[in-house]
């Protein structure tokens, strides 16, 4: 039976890191060096959680989840837990969520546009991880 992970748990983060390393080569990630911190508002218990991922020269550097605001990052994306959940389940596109104001991006928009397709690749991989939401 396929292992299930609690969404945003440390085990889920480890699985995300494993899958990203396995499926995203530095070439596929355009040798990008960047970091992104998704800040989830109104999680199940009403708390704030984060999901941080960073790349160095296209290779996964860190994947961290936890409570609170999390580490500083080049891009910070704020939104409701329910919105991020839909993105992680591939029922809502990240770009649509941004364009409809469901997510709020902080960071250099021009650089963000360059990374948009890479973020889509990451989200598609995350969507394959079985999780309890």
């Amino acid at each position, binding site marked *: 039976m396929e292992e299930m992970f609690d969404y945003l748990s440390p085990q889920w983060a480890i699985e995300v890191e494993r899958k990203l390393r396995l499926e995203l080569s530095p070439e596929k990630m355009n040798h990008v060096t960047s970091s992104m911190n998704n800040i989830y508002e109104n999680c199940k218990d009403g708390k704030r959680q984060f999901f941080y991922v960073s790349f160095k020269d296209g290779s996964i550097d860190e994947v961290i989840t936890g409570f609170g605001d999390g580490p500083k990052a080049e891009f910070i994306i*704020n*939104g409701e837990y329910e919105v991020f959940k839909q993105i992680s389940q591939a029922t809502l596109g990240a770009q649509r*969520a*941004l*364009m*409809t*104001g*469901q*997510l*709020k*991006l*902080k960071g*250099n*928009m*021009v*650089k*963000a*546009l360059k990374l948009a397709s890479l973020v889509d690749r990451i989200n598609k991989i995350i969507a394959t991880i079985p999780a309890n939401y």
Partner: protein
Amino acid sequence: MSNNFVIDPYFIDFPKRILEIQNEMAKKNLDVYLGSRLRTMSWTTDAFFPWRAFIVIPAQGLPTAFTFVIDAARAADDSWLDEDHVLGFAPMGGQDQISQIADFIKDLLPSGKGRIGIENGMSNYLPEGNLTHYEYERFSEALDGYILVNAHEIIDRLALIKDTGTINRFKEASRIVDIGHQAVFDAISNGGWKGMTETEIAGLASHAMRKAGSVWEWSFTGGNEIAVGKRTGYAGGACTPATNKRIEAGDPLMVDIHAMYKLGLGDHSHNYLIGPTSDRQRWHAQNFIDIVELTLKAYKSGITPSDLAFEMMGFAEEKGFADFMVPGFEHGIGMLGDEWRIGMNDGPFPYWTNPDHVYQENEVLICAMQYACPDESIGFRYENPIVIHKDHCEEMSKFRLSVDEIL
């Protein structure tokens, strides 16, 4: 060992400009300056911002410009600021211009309080770029607790006297305009004008000027302004976007062309009479030449627009052509976006030229005159960027002052 330093004649010390703004901000107790006018964007960034743009200048350190995301990378490439200081806004959560800039300012002023200089007012110049009422309301909401203070006079004062690099950019743009005028002269001479429209003349001038290095016929008045026949002599008029009107024998022809070089602006008008020419047309033309020559002799530091208008209108009255003179002899000019008003906003009518503005050395303005006789369908225009010196003015465009008769 030889000294191989090449001095760029068009160099402008933009970091120094920012420091000067920050010094003025400190005097006015401003924590941040939020510029939105096209003239401010040009003067601070050295880049052309055709889309809505803002610049946030902190009390210390580098400024950051914001514009529509589709043009941010290009603007950053053109500017002395790097891509981390020219940001794009877009209709996305947190990335629309109000949210993005308000968040940026809040990061600069995390105490939740502060005085923010803004640019408000009115202008004859449509693309001026003052903060709109809507933008003001939204920024006020997004920056609750902060105080927005109109502070455009900081830029206006600092930009008034032109530095050498700016003047040289204007001179180069004027040199290019002269090439455009020569191309027009060559094309219309010896019957070349037959069948030509105003727009064709505008286009061939543009072609010659672009070949010579101009990047834009920058004027918002339709680029190059060309007028033939009655369109040269609109009552009180001085704005003629080119049309498809064809040149006819016996027409006056007004060629008012514009070039831009590194945001420095060329703007010079030359006038023609297409043969056969009547004595009456020659009389009008000579009046026009006489008053332009006299005006150019009069410009120097210490005089005012009203002094000059009084003297010139007196001359026109004495010579019997005052009825045909539009009583204005100048308009303001600076790096792209700085057009129309002369000097500071300190005259009797807000945001219009102060008639008692005292010209100072190294001010640049457009010496501008319009001679118009609508009843006889004839008019002439003079425009030329000039630098004010202690006891004279320097014409930047060197194309001959004449009304050429063309057959």
